[in-house]
């Protein structure tokens, strides 16, 4: 058994891997929240429920329609995004000019509805979702065993995060989006259809949650509660990172996953709470968040 300074390396790297995987999901969800917050100035409380919806959509597609994992990976985010677009258009937009706390409460209500419906339909115990054939097995590295599917999650979600970052920071579409964040009235005056951009942005942010759900289905069991638990952690991450920067949200998500993984190895009792404790530390030392821009 490989040990270094009395540390079991297999165990350590194993938890580090779990941390990176969790971090990938945190990053995807935090990214979605940050994109939506940037333009709409609302916190989407149903982000966790839509992540759960994505996982269930993948599970149901395979179970009832024989749609395999790869098609789900493409279609489910689109479907969840479309669901989000309907939500934005018919529920959120009518109260867009009210206090933003109302939209928080509205999306919380939607989260309750979704979670309640799936709990009634499927019970609260989890459903298994098989790892796709192509990604079964794993690679034996000198210090650990790396299952292929887990490697895939990390590579794929980081690629999605990087592409999203590139799209927002470096392309013309991203420039519109950032301009809309700064001054929507002026942009409208330039003849750009701001409400359309808002709707599409919301759809995209929500689609990221759906994508995370599909990715998560084979590693976690698909259950109605999977969304609410992760969402509260992602909220803490968003407080830690601040929502001022897209890159900040991604980095904080990954870093917190790793910290959580390390805690699981060194002091498992605190693994559930370590991210919240980091949040407390950040609030004490840098209240605006690590990447926060506000005063």
């Amino acid at each position, binding site marked *: 058994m490989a040990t270094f300074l009395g540390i079991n390396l297999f165990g350590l790297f194993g938890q580090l891997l779990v941390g990176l995987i969790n971090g990938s999901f945190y990053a995807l969800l935090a990214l979605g929240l940050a994109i939506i917050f940037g333009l709409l100035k609302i*916190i989407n409380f149903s982000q966790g429920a839509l992540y759960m919806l994505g996982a269930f959509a993948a599970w149901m597609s395979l179970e009832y329609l024989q749609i395999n994992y790869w098609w789900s990976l493409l279609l489910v985010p689109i479907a969840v995004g479309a669901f989000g677009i309907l939500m934005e258009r018919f529920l959120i937009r009518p109260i867009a000019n009210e206090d933003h706390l109302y939209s928080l409460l*509205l999306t919380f*209500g939607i989260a309750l509805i979704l979670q*309640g419906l799936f709990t009634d339909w499927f019970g609260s115990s989890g459903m298994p979702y098989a790892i796709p054939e192509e990604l079964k097995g794993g690679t034996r590295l000198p210090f650990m065993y790396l299952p292929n599917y887990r490697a895939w999650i990390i590579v794929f979600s980081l690629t999605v995060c990087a592409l999203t970052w590139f799209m927002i920071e470096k392309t013309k579409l991203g420039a519109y989006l950032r301009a809309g964040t700064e001054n929507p009235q002026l942009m409208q005056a330039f003849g750009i259809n701001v409400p359309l951009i808002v709707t599409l942005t919301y759809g995209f942010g929500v689609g990221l949650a759906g994508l995370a759900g599909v990715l998560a289905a084979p590693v976690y069991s698909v259950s109605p509660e999977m969304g609410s638990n992760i969402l*509260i952690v992602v*909220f803490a991450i*968003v*407080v830690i990172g601040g929502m001022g920067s897209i890159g900040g949200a991604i980095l904080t998500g990954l870093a917190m996953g790793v910290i959580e993984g390390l805690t699981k190895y060194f002091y498992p009792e605190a693994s559930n*709470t370590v991210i919240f404790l980091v949040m407390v530390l950040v609030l004490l030392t840098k209240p605006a968040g690590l990447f926060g821009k506000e005063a």
Partner: protein
Amino acid sequence: MNNKALNIVILGLAIAAPFAFYPVFLMKVLCFALFACAFNLLLGYVGLLSFGHAIFLGSGAYITGHLMLNYSITPELGILAGVTVSALIGLVYGKLAVRREGIYFAMVTLALAQLLFFFYLQAPFTGGEDGLQGVPRGKLFGLIDLSDNLTMYYFVLAIFIIGFLIIYRTIHSPFGQILKAIRENEARAVSLGYKVNQYKLQAFVISAALAGLAGSTKALVFQLASLNDVHWFMSGEVVLMTLLGGMGTIWGPVLGAGTIVGLQNFLASGPLANYIHVVMGVVFVICVLAFRNGLVGELQKLIKKNF
């Protein structure tokens, strides 16, 4: 004069109520009404949305439950201990939460509440998933046996009135006026020289202590303290009660709590028993979309328009 008469009528109804309704149901309403009133002090009068208020309810319940179960103390001391601990947690959490504003405040309070939730889940004294069962009600001041539901009801009613009056006094004091000023225009309150964060913190502690009072009392009523009391769903529920009843009104949270508890009791025995969360969610969506002033707020508007 008119208001005084109305208050006497309401008090009379509250005293007569256990002869018409099941006392345990009424006590549940009173506990949640106090919880919602405490929450409303923050949301309705300072404009702070705390999304982790269940932690104060549940902490009060756990502390009182634990002390009553393991040490033979009288219920008023058990409640006092629960309130104290809730207030202290409120002080620490409030200090952290007031560093952020608006939506961040809601997320910080939710995350802080989840921190303690995991602590209670793992701590040995809470009984984990089973919770604390069979909490004795004890004898009030060592004299009055509370095991009888009717006696207990009047005790709970007295506690509710005390809590309600504390909130009423707070809102109608100069301190309360400053809170409202912060709600309406925080920047102006700062420019007038008020230490806004200190006022927010004080309101937060009062609210936490009263939520703890509701939780301690609830633990005695149901002789139970469980994880449900500290779960985020409970935090959402109290938001809904306040929103439905009318935030920023004195009686709104009471009416909202009564409606929600009544609705849950009604649903629990019907065909929709499995859909309670769904129904709560639907009520949430309807309230936000069409009913933002709540029952009391809409009623006030109606009266203003027609009389």
